């Protein structure tokens, strides 16, 4: 996000070493490029500098005052000192000041072991509380079933607030008061559940401490696994397979699908399914819906995807005039849940009342989706019982004693474990669109895209709003893909402007994912997100797609069998009943 004014390069020295960087590079980034890490608790690679914490101070020769490296651009000829005895003493003092308002609760904190503050306190050798403690006496906010805020652990870095306001445009979080009384709180001192929060969890993903964390439900899952009366099945989302490894020392993007299946079985799950299967199913319904609207004029255009529960929550609160444009197809998580509790239970001779379905998701909003509407109980039971985030699964594996790196490779259980390359793409921004267009092309023309056209490249990558065109039987389909809620608003404003002028919609099909990068960058993924990590995780999914024997959702034999044996036709009566949902306007503020 740094501002690059031109391609001009500038020369300066950092710790006596000459360095050349593009004009506009901050001292913090310039130092990192020459192998020096300047500590910071408020600057995050996704965010603009706020200069809140003060840890990144450096000395600039000829200047009396120290400067904050995050918010100071390197200028030609600058001589920077990033580390010396005095700077270390000042940084330690800043850490001691932060610690004086922070509880010493590391042992029982959810960020124990991966807290940025704890790490720096350790590195700087702060070993006692020299300063008097001033811990705020304020209870945690447990009001929303996805995210928990512990205000006492907040260090006022404002990363969560910038994420919520600027990247997500949700404005659920705010910085209130001023000076020493400055504090983070949901919009004007209400509870998170009463605020416009969409549960995306991006605040938690950017928090340096344990102030905002996911609602941990590992214990509930252990209880179910230990209950001999309960049949436990599990599904893993597309993006989990390329991120979980980071918790066990693998580089981001390493595809560990088969090792994860084996691990889940050893944790005690009696059936291991793959959400990718249901992603293929979602495509059958959603591509069908698109063709209905685009070719047969049944329903308004653009069609807008609805797999992302943070997005549907946002839409129900903020874009109520476009509710009719939303795909009614359920998300893959919910489709898998209902098919597991009906079709699979029936086939396996199980009592669905005793079938406990767990989903492993990159996402905190998926926890909310489980009880979103009555349609999430289409099987007659809650279709998915518990959602664990990738981080929670990692903790579960560590608790179990299983050595993840030594797990063998196994296959998922048939038939809800088979997937096409299209299914796995769901985990990245543009993936749902790419998968849907592959199948829509087949539905309209009766032919698959040619081998060289399967990868719909304009749909890929991290650009906030991507546009693409694809020709179906001589008619051009215009699509848009956006991720990060602030980008979504731009796309929808364009749709609205065209509608208000009585013009044709600028797009026929829009894909939306709430989190930057899509699910691979979800709020429940391993910590340490940046565009670099997002790209690697995306590459992992593209590679998985490419290595699949089948690349089209409609060619997944298990999906074809499911329609033949159980569901009938896509968009048919039974499919409508089990696989579709409705949206309704909701109030953004409960008070």
């Amino acid at each position, binding site marked *: 996000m740094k501002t690059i004014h031109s391609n001009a390069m500038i020369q300066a020295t950092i710790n006596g070493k000459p360095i050349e960087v593009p004009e506009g590079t901050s001292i913090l980034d310039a130092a990192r490029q020459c192998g020096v890490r300047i500590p910071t608790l408020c600057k995050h690679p996704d965010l603009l500098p706020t200069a809140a914490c003060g840890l990144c101070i450096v000395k600039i020769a000829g200047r009396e005052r120290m400067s904050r490296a995050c918010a100071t651009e390197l200028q030609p000829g600058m001589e920077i000192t990033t580390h010396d005895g005095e700077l270390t003493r000042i940084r330690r003092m800043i850490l001691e000041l932060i610690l004086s308002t922070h509880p010493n609760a590391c042992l029982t904190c959810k960020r124990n072991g991966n807290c940025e503050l704890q790490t720096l306190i350790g590195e700087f050798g702060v070993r006692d509380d020299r300063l008097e403690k001033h811990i705020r006496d304020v209870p945690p906010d447990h009001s929303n079933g996805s995210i928990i805020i512990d205000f006492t652990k907040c260090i006022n870095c404002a990363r969560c607030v910038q994420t919520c306001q600027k990247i997500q445009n949700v*404005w*659920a979080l*705010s910085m209130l*008061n*001023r000076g020493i009384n400055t504090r983070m709180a949901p*919009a*004007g*001192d209400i509870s998170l559940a009463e605020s416009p929060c969409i549960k995306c969890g991006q605040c938690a993903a950017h928090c340096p401490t344990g102030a905002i964390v996911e609602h941990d439900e590992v214990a509930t899952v252990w209880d179910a696994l230990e209950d001999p009366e309960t049949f436990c099945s599990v599904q893993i989302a597309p993006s989990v397979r390329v991120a979980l490894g980071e918790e066990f020392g693998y580089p981001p993007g390493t595809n560990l699908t088969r090792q994860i299946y084996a691990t889940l079985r050893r944790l005690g799950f009696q059936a291991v399914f793959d959400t990718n299967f249901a992603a293929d199913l979602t495509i059958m319904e959603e591509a069908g819906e698109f063709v209905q609207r685009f070719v047969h004029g049944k329903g308004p255009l653009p069609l807008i995807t609805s797999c992302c529960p943070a997005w549907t929550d946002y839409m129900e609160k903020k874009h109520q005039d476009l509710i009719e444009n939303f795909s009614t197809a359920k998300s893959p998580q919910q489709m898998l849940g209902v098919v597991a509790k009906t079709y699979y239970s029936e086939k396996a001779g199980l009592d669905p009342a005793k079938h406990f379905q767990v989903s492993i998701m990159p996402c905190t909003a998926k926890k909310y989706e489980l009880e979103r509407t009555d349609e999430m109980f289409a099987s007659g039971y809650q279709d998915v019982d518990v959602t664990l985030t990738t981080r929670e699964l990692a903790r579960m594996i560590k608790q179990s004693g299983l050595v993840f790196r030594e797990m063998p490779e196994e296959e998922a259980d048939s038939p809800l474990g088979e997937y096409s390359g299209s299914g796995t793409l769901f985990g990245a921004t543009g993936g749902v669109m790419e998968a849907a267009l592959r199948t829509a092309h087949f539905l309209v023309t009766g032919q698959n895209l040619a081998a060289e056209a399967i990868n719909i490249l304009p749909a890929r990558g991290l650009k906030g709003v991507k546009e693409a065109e694809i020709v179906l039987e001589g008619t051009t389909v215009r699509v848009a893909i956006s991720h990060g809620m602030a980008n979504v608003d731009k796309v929808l404003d364009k749709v609205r402007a065209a509608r208000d002028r009585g013009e044709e919609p600028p797009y026929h099909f829009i894909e939306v994912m709430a989190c930057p990068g899509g699910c691979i960058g979800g709020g429940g993924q391993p910590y340490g997100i940046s565009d670099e990590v997002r790209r690697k995780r995306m590459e992992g999914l593209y590679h998985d797609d490419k290595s699949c024997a089948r690349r089209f959702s409609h060619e997944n034999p298990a999906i074809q069998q499911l329609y033949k044996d159980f569901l009938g036709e896509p968009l048919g009566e039974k499919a409508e009943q089990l696989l579709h949902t409705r949206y309704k306007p909701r109030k953004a*503020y409960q008070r």
Partner: protein
Amino acid sequence: MQTQTELGKLLEWVEIMRGRIREIVREWADQEGNLIMMLHAIQNEFGYISRGAAGELAKETGISMARIYEVITFYHYFRVTPPGKHTLQVCMGTACYLKGAAALHKELERQLGILAAAGGGHDEFQLETVRCIGCCGMAPAVVVDAETHGRLCPGDMAQILHQKQKA
């Protein structure tokens, strides 16, 4: 019936409030930095900025509640609770401070605490501190509603409250 009438009155009042806020928004629309001016207008009109008023302002302007509360809580001038019937402004300007204003403030807090413990009356008063009110010759001074009392000592505070309660 009683509650229905009360509810009717309340709804009527809410409608009046909404109408007034719409007027304020119209008045300041298109002006840069208008949020603070609109908040001033609302506080002047209603004595404070209620959650309802903030919500109405958010709806009319498209400014988020988070931003509105960031501004309201940043500036001490804005109030989010209704003002008391009587205001007690203890001057904390340099002269008054040196002459013992802090002790007056502490004593007022104590007296209001006694009233609260005795079952009420404290919420009629709103205790504030202000910077120099330009009456340094009378230091330490307390402004009670619009009336300035000077050369006070903590022992005078109970009497001030008592007089206002009787009034």
